[in-house]
């Protein structure tokens, strides 16, 4: 087994409510990430999809030590990192940097691009390198002209700022890049450029990537494997192509069938879900998706489904879709 990142039963909790709530005996903590396990192999791209609030960003922040882990394990290159202190985490973050959501907002407005690109080297005590040369190398790597070094973030377009974000992330030869919504807010043509760049860099530098997005078209173009999150848990994960071709969990199937397509004549055969998303403050009993699931049966409201495997897919559902009739069953 040569997984670069290996996460098992990871939980992240947030305190909620005040003293009164506690005296009433109400819940005092909610689980933002509620027991998630997965591996990312070397050179592999793994995508997290799910709606806003499903725990994608919290999970990513926990991996990077930006969010305290309540329980579970995170192993990076064989080393347990969920319990590391600040100093040791710094080295982990060098090898596993994060690209934050807002392309312009994640760059300091008071630093020019040269300073922004030199910053990772300074933080990690590598200022003795020829920083000007590094800046030139990075700009070239992400396809920006060398004279951009003297510009400030507000002078860049969203796509250009995103390229600077990519350059910062890859500055110190990382092994795994965590990208939170790398294409959100970018237009389709610029989105294509950024994805092409990331795909290209991954191949050239042998990177692993964890991509968070709610754009399913992006997932299909970039991810080897995909996990679908709902209320802080994975409801289904496996090979991207297999999931897109034959989703087994009803939520995955609904997401894929919902996806609007640029064709006004297209007739949609959609799985409709009631839009009332439950809150993590009051998780439904049994299968947590049963309140919205059009295929739910009596047992779904009572019993939480265990993880099961169908092909390359791991999912939590009592009554998965698109399952071939079991072999050996005679009629």
């Amino acid at each position: 087994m040569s997984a670069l990142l290996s996460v098992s039963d990871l939980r992240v909790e947030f305190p909620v409510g005040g003293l009164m709530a506690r005296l009433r005996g109400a819940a005092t903590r909610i689980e933002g990430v509620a027991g998630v396990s997965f591996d990312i192999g070397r050179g592999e791209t793994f995508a997290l999809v799910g709606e806003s609030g499903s725990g994608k960003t919290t999970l990513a922040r926990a991996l990077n030590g930006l969010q305290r882990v309540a329980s579970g394990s995170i192993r990076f290159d064989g080393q347990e990192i969920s319990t590391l202190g600040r100093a040791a985490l710094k080295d982990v973050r060098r090898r596993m940097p994060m690209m934050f959501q807002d392309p312009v907002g994640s760059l300091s407005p008071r630093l020019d691009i040269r300073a922004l690109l030199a910053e990772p080297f300074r933080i990690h005590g590598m200022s003795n390198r020829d920083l000007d040369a590094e800046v030139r190398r990075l700009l070239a790597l992400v396809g920006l002209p060398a004279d951009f070094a003297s510009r400030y973030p507000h002078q860049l377009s969203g796509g250009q700022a995103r390229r600077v974000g990519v350059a910062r992330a890859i500055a110190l030869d990382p092994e795994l890049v965590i990208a939170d919504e790398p294409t959100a807010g970018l237009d389709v043509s610029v989105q294509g450029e950024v994805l092409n760049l990331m795909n290209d860099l991954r191949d050239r530098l042998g990177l692993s990537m964890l991509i968070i997005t709610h754009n399913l078209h992006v997932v299909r173009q970039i991810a080897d494997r995909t996990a679908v999150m709902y209320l802080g848990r994975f409801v289904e994960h496996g090979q991207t192509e297999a999931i897109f071709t034959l989703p087994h969990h009803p939520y995955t199937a609904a997401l894929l069938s919902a996806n609007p397509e640029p064709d006004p004549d297209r007739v949609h055969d959609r799985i409709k879900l009631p839009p009332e998303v439950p809150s993590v403050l009051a998780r439904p009993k049994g299968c947590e998706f049963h309140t919205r699931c059009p295929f739910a049966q009596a047992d779904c409201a009572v019993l939480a489904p265990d993880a099961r495997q169908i092909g390359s897919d791991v999912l939590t559902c009592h009554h998965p879709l698109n399952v071939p009739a079991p072999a050996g069953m005679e009629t």
Partner: protein
Amino acid sequence: MGGAPTLQIDGLSVSFATEAGTLQALKDVSFTVPQGRITGIVGESGCGKSTLINSILGLLADNGSVTGGVIRLEGKEDLTRLGAREMRALRGERISTVFQDPMGALNPVLSVGRQMRDIQYRSNLSRREKDARSVAMLRQVRIPDPEKRLTQYPHEFSGGMKQRVAIAMALMMRPALLIADEPTTALDATLEVATIELMKDLQREIGCAVLFISHHLGVIAELCDEMIVMYAGEVVERGSVRQIFKGARHPYTQALLECDPARLHERVKHLPTIPGTLPDLKNRSAGCIFRDRCAKAGPECTTTPPDVELAPGHVARCWFAKEAAE
């Protein structure tokens, strides 16, 4: 039916005074939003969508000014000539807006009921009657148990529900025009589709015209009747959704549609993009704004292209618009 379109914009130009010189953000923009229809606007960031909305709402920044053109609401007043007080009377009443981030539209420390009552401040109804209208409106946007919901705060609503509350508030005063600025961007695909369907139903029930801004082409195709395509502050093409998605004639529109990964049903090595970058709006050169990035560009393109009407309602600003058909 008949009557004037809900919104008619003719030859609108808007400039901003910046330290580095005058930036022309909109140039000769013309289109109409017919009564009871949904019109979509697509275009990349920086194409002038926000400037256009702010011009309609009378909310341009201090350094921005309308340098030409007319914005007519329901065939009556020219909005570019109204003063701040008159515009304030229009906003929320005859034109209302839904923004991308519903949390930003709602006040986190006031109950939803209080906020819905507050936006009816111009009405003479009693508090109880106002609350009854709020409940009716929440029911109309399919929020279950609306009476109880009035006492709750925004954080007690999920993202999709908050957006529906924002839509309810925008439609409260039965506006003639609803401007929706990327209202589904923060939602997952199932909620996005639910929101689109809700907006379609509400538009039918209330009968207002909708101007819907999105860079999600699939959403535009599904929701809108008409659409306009903007590039660098100009409307390069407009027409019905079918005319554009099935027979785009402007090279920019064609390239934009080509880039949408939703068109690709399998993984490709290299995603299509539009080579080149947006032109500098501070030094607009004469001629076609897209010519530096256009594969078809020829000598004609150094002079400003005409708005060519290709079919009723289908207009492209390109010298070669007619040829592209053959």
